[in-house]
């Protein structure tokens, strides 16, 4: 071995020292903490209010934690709160939303992923024109299509049913999801597709056995987008369904805006949190999946 030691060093050496309370750090973390508090505070107020009884709320201490914890408002919001004539709480709306969201998400993602796959790998005549038209669809305001769709649904006998709303959500998810999937599949190495063709796999076999297993990250993104979008939808829900089939968002609105009796703030807060719980849990669950998906997808060929 060559002797590589030399005389003791003088002057700056090794990692540069950093002060924990430099002006830069104070500014950076100060801003972050302030913004975090700004967003967290309403959630906190909602949560503590939902656990208080009405007499305690009338005292007006909005920020103080409940003196006497009660879950009655939650129970009431779920199963007893009145919307107009019926008093079933949010539960009916919740199950309606589940029946709307699950088929819409699955259908729209399956169709859009096949669309994106065909557009990126099997260039057919007019593929680019088709894609342009589809993307253009994403820029048309919903309001323009609201009434024509009412007529179309009425003509095919789906107006007011859950099926009709599922159809509308599936169609409206198409442009953005197709774009998402097309761009993802285009980014996968083309040689994989070629190799699969040499191996004798056809359109569906390549899709199911080569492309889909590599696409966990983009499917996760699509699920997040669709679940939150469809669950939080109010406009389509109120326009295309009948009162029996109202989704949870519409029920929530009806409970909170009911004009009869006393405003029950604790029940309203509990109902709002209940409605937001599904998108919230989707973020928590799929956030981890998302990271894992990216790690698995990072290995290319």
């Amino acid at each position, binding site marked *: 071995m060559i002797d590589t030691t030399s005389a003791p060093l003088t002057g700056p050496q090794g990692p540069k020292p950093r002060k924990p309370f430099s002006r830069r750090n104070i500014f950076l973390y100060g801003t972050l903490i302030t913004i975090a508090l700004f967003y967290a505070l309403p959630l906190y107020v909602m949560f503590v209010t939902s656990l208080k009884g009405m007499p305690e709320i009338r005292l007006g201490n909005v920020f103080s934690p409940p003196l006497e914890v009660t879950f009655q408002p939650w129970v009431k919001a779920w199963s007893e709160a009145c919307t107009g004539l019926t008093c079933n709480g949010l539960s009916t709306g919740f199950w309606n939303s589940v029946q709307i969201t699950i088929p819409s998400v699955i259908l729209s993602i399956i169709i859009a992923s096949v669309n994106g796959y065909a557009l990126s790998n099997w260039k057919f005549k007019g593929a680019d024109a088709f894609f342009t038209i589809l993307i253009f669809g994403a820029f048309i305001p919903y309001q323009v299509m609201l009434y024509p769709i009412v007529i179309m649904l009425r003509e095919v006998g789906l107006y007011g049913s859950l099926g009709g709303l599922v159809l509308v959500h599936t169609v409206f998810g198409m442009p953005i999801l197709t774009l998402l999937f097309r761009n993802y599949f285009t980014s996968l190495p083309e040689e994989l597709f*070629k*190799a699969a*063709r*040499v191996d*004798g796999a056809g359109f569906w076999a390549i899709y199911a056995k080569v492309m889909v*297993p590599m696409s966990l990250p983009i499917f996760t993104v699509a699920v997040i987008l669709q679940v939150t979008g469809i669950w939080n939808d109010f406009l389509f829900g109120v326009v295309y369904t009948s009162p029996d089939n109202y989704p949870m968002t519409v029920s929530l609105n009806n409970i909170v805006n009911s004009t009869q009796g006393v405003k029950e703030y604790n029940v309203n807060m509990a109902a709002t949190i209940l409605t937001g719980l599904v998108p919230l849990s989707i973020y928590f669950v799929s956030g981890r999946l998302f990271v894992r998906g990216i790690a698995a997808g990072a290995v290319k*060929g």
Partner: protein
Amino acid sequence: MQNSVEIKNLDLQFGAVKVLQNLNLEIGKGEFLVLLGSSGCGKSTLLNCIAGLLDVSGGQIHINDRNVTWAEPSDRGIGMVFQSYALYPQMTVEGNLSFGLKNAKLPKPEIAKRIKHASEVLQIEPLLKRKPAALSGGQRQRVAIGRALVRDVDVFLFDEPLSNLDAKLRADLRVEIKRLHHKLQNTMIYVTHDQIEAMTLADRIAIMRGGQIMQLGSPDEIYGQPINKYVADFIGSPSMNFLEGNIKNGTFEMGELSIPLDGYEFGDTGAATEGAATMGIRPEHVVTGELVESTPFQVDVEVNLIEPTGSDTLVDCEVAGHHFRVRMDGQSRVSVGEKLRLGFAPARASLFDAKTELRL
């Protein structure tokens, strides 16, 4: 010799761009053909046409006396190895090898037999249960070759298979591919831009440029008798020295120097053509030291620059105003500014017409 692959009047164009033009090529059974060219010359495109991954605009492709111009890639009796390996990342090595066979609906015992055979040949048996991510570059490329091997096909297509590997591994795998070819005796078509790979592997090399084949011949022919100046310049590293001059009365005249052309084998014309010409001489065909006395042509030069590479020393100098490089033994001691006496035999040189750049 029976032909394994025949390409007849092949045309390919993307819109107005003609990528391949009226290309004809016949590849014999068991032959190792290398398509060599710089990027954008159409060599990979040609391979994709043979594989059926690109639709041709005109002409025919025959594999094993069967017209496969319209056939699906999987029905052509070919196996293909890609530059990026293109292994299916979510399948194990075994899954990768069996994917094509399962698509062909082969019975399970047959699939197992073929995988066993291929993994023995390529020595990847211990890796069968692993995913591609857990393999090194060399191992991945072996699996990619295995995927072509299990298909039990007559023609192997390689699309720059070694370009993603480091230099040492590339040299090792090159030898392995050659060994594999000796063992299997399959027809192999191999695309590369690396001339060392081409020279070492090929039975015949096709040099491509602008969608056409410039020269098709054995590595010896390509190296020794390049058909035009482009091929001469492309093959060989360091590249050939070119001297501009005139041919007159059987000598090559260049300013004050005149090089006798005795022993040079002229092409079709059989005799010296008069007029402007370019002489090409490879750096390794120039001799120095005591050997100079035995050469028909000698010249004195001054050393401008030296590049020692260990095994050789490359010397930069000037001959009659032209940049000239000489390859000397790595042991030779030369220094910049030194006077050196060079000599070479015109019989080993190449002469090209100055206008058409074709070999004389």
